[in-house]
């Protein structure tokens, strides 16, 4: 990531609304010398679908992993449904009602479809702590039917499935829980057009139900305008743009991104010139 500062006037400040289900203020996170998330302000209304755009390394995945309890932020505050929110773990976040579909899907190749569906939420038969496999199989079938994606056998290791099928399992696993907020990190990566459309349909259906609020990391602008109510653009660890999709356009988003490239190039050239000057002085 280049050391390009986003113009100060564009950085989105904290916003509040009464019906925010999730609010994030001044959240930051570094890994050693690398600042992944510089200063994020974000809000999510109930039933809303928010699309997150941004270049590789802009901090999107780190932000998602902070929201879902996988990473702890270095600073900043978060509120969930009006309460202060500081998840200690993924499980803690899930118990608060935030669940995630990770970019790497968090599937275990060697486990079967239904074992993956219920990974870390296994059903247990009492009194001995044995797994209630028949119940998990049945509920897996139900949940997969709801996604509309055809997975003929749920007793096979997921390594045998296609990228799209694996994605569908990861998405179905998350939405079949009782989360209020669902985070999806590139849910349409590794998907064929048809499977991608099914996932978008699914998200549209969830939106229509109005029960859950969704944050999605996307790469494709078309998908953003298809599926999202609002779009935020992360640049260099801050939110540099935030607007309802109805009030913006592919062209505007494009322009911002192109501008970023231009700035990055200028910065790189200036740096090169600086290095050259330093060398001249040294000689």
């Amino acid at each position: 990531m280049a050391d390009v500062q986003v113009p100060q006037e564009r950085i989105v400040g904290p916003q509040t609304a009464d019906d925010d289900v999730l609010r994030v203020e001044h959240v930051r996170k570094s890994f050693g010398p690398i600042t992944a998330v510089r200063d994020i302000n974000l809000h999510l209304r109930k039933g809303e679908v928010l699309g997150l755009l941004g270049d590789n390394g802009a901090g999107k995945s780190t932000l998602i992993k902070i929201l879902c309890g996988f990473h702890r932020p270095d600073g900043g505050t978060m509120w969930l449904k009006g309460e202060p929110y500081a998840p200690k773990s993924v499980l803690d976040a899930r118990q608060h009602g935030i669940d995630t579909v990770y970019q790497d899907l968090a599937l275990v190749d060697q486990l079967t479809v239904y074992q993956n569906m219920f990974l870390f939420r296994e059903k247990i038969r009492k009194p001995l702590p044995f797994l209630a496999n028949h119940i998990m199989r049945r509920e897996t079938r139900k949940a997969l039917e709801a996604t509309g994606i055809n997975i003929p056998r749920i007793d096979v290791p997921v390594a045998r499935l296609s990228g799209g099928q694996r994605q569908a399992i990861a998405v179905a696993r998350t939405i079949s829980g009782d989360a209020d907020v669902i985070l999806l990190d590139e849910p349409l990566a590794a998907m064929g057009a048809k499977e991608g459309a099914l996932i978008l349909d699914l998200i549209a259906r969830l939106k229509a139900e109005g029960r859950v609020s969704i944050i999605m990391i996307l790469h494709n602008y078309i998908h953003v305008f298809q599926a999202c109510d609002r779009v935020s653009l992360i640049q260099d660890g801050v939110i540099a743009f935030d607007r309802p999709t109805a009030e913006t356009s592919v062209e505007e988003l494009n322009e911002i991104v192109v501008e970023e490239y231009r700035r990055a190039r200028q910065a790189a050239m200036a740096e090169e010139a600086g290095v050259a000057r330093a060398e001249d002085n040294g000689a």
Partner: protein
Amino acid sequence: MAVASGSTPPAEAEPKGPAKGWAQRAGALSLAQRFLTLREGSIIIVTLIAFLYFALSTNKFLTSSSLKALLPYFAPFAIMAAGQVFVMINAEIDLSIGAVYLFTPFIFYKLNANVGLPLVLAMIGALIVAMLVGLFNGLVVSVVGISSFVTTLGTLFTLSGLTLIISHATQVTTPGTSVVKVGTFAQIFGGGTYSELFWAIGIALVLQLVLTFTRWGIYTVAVGGNRLGAAEAGVRTKLVLTRNFVMCAGLAGFVGILEAVRAATTTPDPSGANVILFQAISAAVIGGTLLQGGSGTVIGAFIGAIFLGILQDGLNIKGVSANYFYFWLGIAILIAMAFNTYVSRVRTGSGHG
């Protein structure tokens, strides 16, 4: 084709002799393939072949004294391999189990002879010490993040040295045993003829159930198969790893006590303990456990241990030089490795061919 006239649909509806034969053969083939792609399928066949070979080529192999002699060759490895399987499914390895096997009976001796604890309490105390070694291994691997190979190599030498220090490199009589009479404690914990066999079967069955039907087992596979993914799903990977190291060391310590009671003497022999370490790992590997993690069964390791026992006992009876044992053991491991890699590719359907 000239023969097909389009007016002979009944011929298709009822397959004739050869077609039916084909279908049956295909069915038998797929059944055979399914058996072979069972993780334990190959080792079962290899073990049966070894068994039949020794049973037919010598007339002493099938006698009860021979089969009794086989027991101590396999039961200890079966138990130690059971613990190692859990660690190996985690994509880790515990090289210290030989040293724990060596060290624990001396703690048992010290707690009984020097501290004055009764036999059972001294044994429990010694097992707790063994599990503390496992806890150390597990925490260093999972929390500090040092590779298990290096960590357990360190505990291997530390414990071997410590055993020599506290024993002054001399053997002692194992508490609870006597040359004259085998008492109740000794009967149960290694001294009885079938004691180790019962322990091995019981432990293998329980741990296979744990591996297949409990969260502990599922999480063990998950942590070995995709550590980051398991963590993202919420699995406490450090706990899972540490727990398996603790169990593995505890079982190794238990086998150490069983064997010390069986032999009635506790001998500080680090090189012998390392042979036992490698045989336990061999049993797990031959039984289909992959070193890269995510896959393996306790039952497979159990059969792998039986195979080692048959090989050792059979070669003894045939009067073949002991040197052949390692030769064939090595060949068996190489074949098992090749086969297991093939089988795991077929199972996961990831590019075989």
